[in-house]
């Protein structure tokens, strides 16, 4: 490639040196730390924009809470009620709620081109969805813990294992969060995403259904302390994928949702 049929005068060496310095400084701007990136993203978007569909979120949450209470009441009346079923319920509920909220988010995005234009100026749909997942996950962990502690205090049931319920709830949410991000980042086909989401929901319903599968969550089958490393592992995968989103931002690259 160097035959150089049309010779040109290159710039002076000091001009070239200055240009190279400028190129490197601009292209390799110092990486901000991951928590700083998350905080900046949150500050830029603001709570109102991040959860601009808060009425739908509230409605979905109330719907799920009502369904949860009704299911719990109906299950408690059954003579065959087993605490294991309650653990299965705890394991499935938070991810299902989030799945519903995510679907709401993406459906709204598809229906609202203005929202897409506003958001695509700075962050991709995946980044916003992931930050929502993080905020929701943190809130859900707190709420779950509060509800479980409340239940343990109010219901003096010897069969209800609070540490197991707490670790199970955290591990389930982190498992779903890491799977959710993985699908968002790696699976490009919308149809495949829908199939995977539906499969997860179907699995949840199967585990909650009228069979003995609830025993999988029994303290005898998996002790609560095993959920701690599992939860840590899922948290690690979640944060790793979330970090990848920050790298995408630095590269200026976006995926389409």
């Amino acid at each position, binding site marked *: 490639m*160097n035959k150089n*049929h049309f010779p040109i005068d290159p*710039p002076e060496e000091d001009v070239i040196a200055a240009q*190279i*310095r400028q190129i*490197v400084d601009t292209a390799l701007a110092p990486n901000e730390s991951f928590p700083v990136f998350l905080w900046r993203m949150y500050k830029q978007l603001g709570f109102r924009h991040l959860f601009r569909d808060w009425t739908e979120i509230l409605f979905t949450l109330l719907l799920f809470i009502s369904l949860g209470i009704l299911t719990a009441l109906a299950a408690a009346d059954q003579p065959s009620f087993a605490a294991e079923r309650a653990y299965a319920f705890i394991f499935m509920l938070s991810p299902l709620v989030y799945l519903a909220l995510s679907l709401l988010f993406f459906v709204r995005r598809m229906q609202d081109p203005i929202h897409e234009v506003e958001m695509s100026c700075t962050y991709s749909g995946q980044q916003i969805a992931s930050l929502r997942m993080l905020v929701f996950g943190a809130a859900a962990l707190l709420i779950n813990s509060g509800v479980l502690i409340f239940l343990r205090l109010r219901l003096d049931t010897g069969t209800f294992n609070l540490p197991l319920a707490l670790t199970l709830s955290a591990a389930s949410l982190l498992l779903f969060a890491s799977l959710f991000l993985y699908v968002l980042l790696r699976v490009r086909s919308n149809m495949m995403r829908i199939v995977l989401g539906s499969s997860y929901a179907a699995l949840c319903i199967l585990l909650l259904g009228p069979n003995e599968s609830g025993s999988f969550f029994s303290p005898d089958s998996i002790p609560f302390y095993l959920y701690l490393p599992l939860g840590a592992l899922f948290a690690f995968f979640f944060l790793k994928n979330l970090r990848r989103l920050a790298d995408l931002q630095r590269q200026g690259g976006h995926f389409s949702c």
Partner: protein
Amino acid sequence: MDEEIKWIRQIQHKSDKKAANALVDRYYREIYGFVRKQTSNPELALDLTQEVFISALQSLRGFDGSRASFRTWLYRIASNRIVDHYRSAHYRYAGQSPPIAEDWSDGIDFTLEVERRDEAQQVLDAAQRLEPTAQLIFRLKFFADCTFSEIAGLLKLSESTVKSKYYALIRKIQHELGGDRS
């Protein structure tokens, strides 16, 4: 080449500024020359070259050395950037003169130089009306002096396709210029 791979890895993994300096320094003059021959003034060539390298460094994580050499990849970015420039509203509305390799005519008398510049301008005008792939082939052949085999590798086309497209575009340009130039 091993050194180059090492620099690329250092940039990909550690955003190493020293490695980035060395890598840009190795190719800066060559890419500047490629851009300068296709632009109307040195300042614009400096700006476009800067954009090419910034874009290359920022997307270096996506660079796969097994599919193309870094140099090939850089030429592709530079070619696309130049095509983008000439398709941009800024270029069309700013009324800039088309690219001329001003310095290629040192030592030629004034009349001849004006004629050659005029011809070159007409050729480049015609090239800018070509479809993007044909434009890339034209620019790489004329301004980077690439061989057909190099262009084929660059654009992931077969060498025979590149040749046929090249001769077709030359015929088209000749036709547009009145069929009297070779």
